[in-house]
């Protein structure tokens, strides 16, 4: 047993991290200027990152999605990397709606391929009305089925796993930004990070994220259901978001501060790809199957 990234996987994570750290494309994407973001996606495809995430082991997908979450990369990443490999036909980005838990296709106005998955059957989709999301980087579209493509198994679960990893990355980013902020923000003559009321909250966020991460990677290895990963990562990231906003104070409650990029992302992903209630029901169903725990 070695429950740690292999040297190749660690290098993949580092490469991705270095590449995405330089990109600052979320605000343009939210404003409707997709070109800088698409340039990053093209770069990822050219470097082979996209194909590793799409065609590698689930752990590779998780590594990629954690980086996407950490750096708030916009675009239909879950859909392109996790759900639709094999159906992108060379397209840079693809998107899909999977009712009832994924009622809209994200960024259908940017993706070159749009699908709907109904009862395990994939259809090409025709985008309809655009609906705003709490996350300005996620444009939501109603989609109607057009042409049947064929059966697609396991798509929702791969999407859930990818969403969990994205939440985990976003949660880690929120904690990192909060730690930086409370070290430099001074009140009462001291950095606010020296106050126990602040320390203890951030320590709790750290514990939540540290214990969620192995659940996400464990789900990639089939040790636990992907629903467990979504619950663990979703709750840890959401706690990170709420705490981040609180320790930033009023500046965090502004759209100008970059914190809003992750706050809104986590709020959106927390209920996307199945709510906590949906996934808890799924986990309990697994645990109480007559054959016993999975």
């Amino acid at each position, binding site marked *: 047993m070695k429950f740690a990234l292999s040297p190749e996987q660690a290098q993949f994570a580092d490469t991705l991290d270095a590449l995405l750290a330089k990109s600052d494309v979320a605000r343009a994407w939210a404003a409707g200027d997709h070109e800088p973001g698409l340039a990053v996606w093209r770069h990822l495809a050219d470097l082979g990152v996209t194909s590793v995430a799409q065609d590698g082991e689930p752990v590779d997908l998780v590594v990629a999605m954690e980086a996407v979450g950490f750096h708030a990369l916009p675009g239909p990443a879950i859909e392109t990397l996790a759900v639709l490999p094999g159906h992108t036909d060379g397209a840079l980005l693809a998107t899909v709606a999977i009712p009832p838990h994924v009622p809209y296709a994200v960024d259908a106005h940017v993706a070159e391929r749009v699908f709907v998955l109904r009862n395990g059957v994939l259809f090409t989709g025709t985008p309809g009305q655009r609906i705003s999301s709490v996350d300005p980087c996620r444009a939501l579209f109603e989609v109607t089925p057009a042409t049947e493509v064929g059966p697609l198994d396991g798509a929702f679960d791969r999407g859930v796993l990818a969403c969990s990893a994205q939440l985990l990355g976003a949660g880690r980013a929120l904690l990192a930004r909060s730690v930086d902020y409370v070290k430099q923000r001074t009140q009462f003559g001291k950095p606010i990070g020296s106050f126990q009321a602040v320390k203890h909250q951030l320590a709790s966020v750290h514990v939540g994220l540290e214990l969620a991460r192995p659940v996400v990677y464990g789900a990639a*290895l089939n*040790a636990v259901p992907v629903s467990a990963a979504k619950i663990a990562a979703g709750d840890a990231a959401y706690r990170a978001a709420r705490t981040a906003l609180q320790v930033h104070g009023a500046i965090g409650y502004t759209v100008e501060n970059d914190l809003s990029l992750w706050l809104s992302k986590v709020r959106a992903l927390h209920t996307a790809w199945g709510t906590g209630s949906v996934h808890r029901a799924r986990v309990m169903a697994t645990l109480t199957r007559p054959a016993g725990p999975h």
Partner: protein
Amino acid sequence: MDLDLDPATLGFQAEVRSWLAAHVPSELPSLDTADGFEAHRAWERTLFDERLSVVSWPAEYGGRDASLLQWLVFEEEYYAAGAPARVSQNGIFLLAPTLFAHGTPEQCARLLPAMASAEEVWAQAWSEPEAGSDLAAIRASAAKTDGGWLLSGQKTWSSRAAFADRGFGLFRTSGERHRGLTYFMFSLRAPGVTVRPIAQLDGEPGFAEIFLDDVFVPDEDVIGAVDNGWQVAMSTASNERGLSLRSPGRFLATAGRLVRLWQALPDPALRDRVVDAWIGAQAYRLYTFGTVARLAEGGSLGAESSVNKLFWSELDIAMHETALELLGGEGEADGPWLDGYVFSLAGPIYAGTNEIQRNVVAERILGLPR
């Protein structure tokens, strides 16, 4: 990245599982009673005779030289089998790592086999009335005498001290605060020792006060250098908070029982809490496997043991609270869930309160200013 057990570990797991299935006794009386203490001591001897009381120790001291992973597997099997609480845990999980790191070969040879067989059961003696979270405020002292030391002062909240044979802790030999403390081992039966048992929340004397009045301790029962006790104690303190004191096996077993309780009493309003408990136990298990991988690469436990301690102590309470809710009106009645609940309440207090642990996480891991 994988979670597969190697053939040797699988073989060990199978052996442990079948041995436990044949030997685990039906429920013993509480180890915090005189009869229960001796029953648990006898069980430790049974484990020792099979070389299962300290599997990760070297064979010369009664162990099997098992890997950390095999030890975790042993723990999972042990708790899954519903085997008794470990009366010798203070010795084997807290003192022994210190002896391995700082003890002399003579000390190890003299003390470890008797610890492994529970012929000698050890009590910890860290806290004092004025030194709890602020452990460096220790006032109990040791004065040099011919061939050894005379210990004086008062220790308190000493787990197992009511019935144990020997104790270990820090005493002031000079200086102030962290400087000038020395790590001593002493007999709880020596002249000058008075043990006053303290009834815990469950009514049983799980811990005690120890009064020491010029208690003689020979030089060979000092661990490490005189005046260097703080460094000696802290170098292995992460064992208490971290891996060894509360391994994942315990919580996996509790989570499994909680799921079965929910199946028997399926209150839909409590479903989510049961699921969260199960996920928490799995998270701790997987997190620990990650720690094992990190240690295998030469990493150390350090401040991250505070993350463990925060997580398992709060998980333990949440699981037992959920069980009592499921039991409804029966929740207040005597039974294993109530016993477990009362026990779990101490978790956020002992081995360093969770407030102290959060300070450690914030300052040493996140780098926030003191």
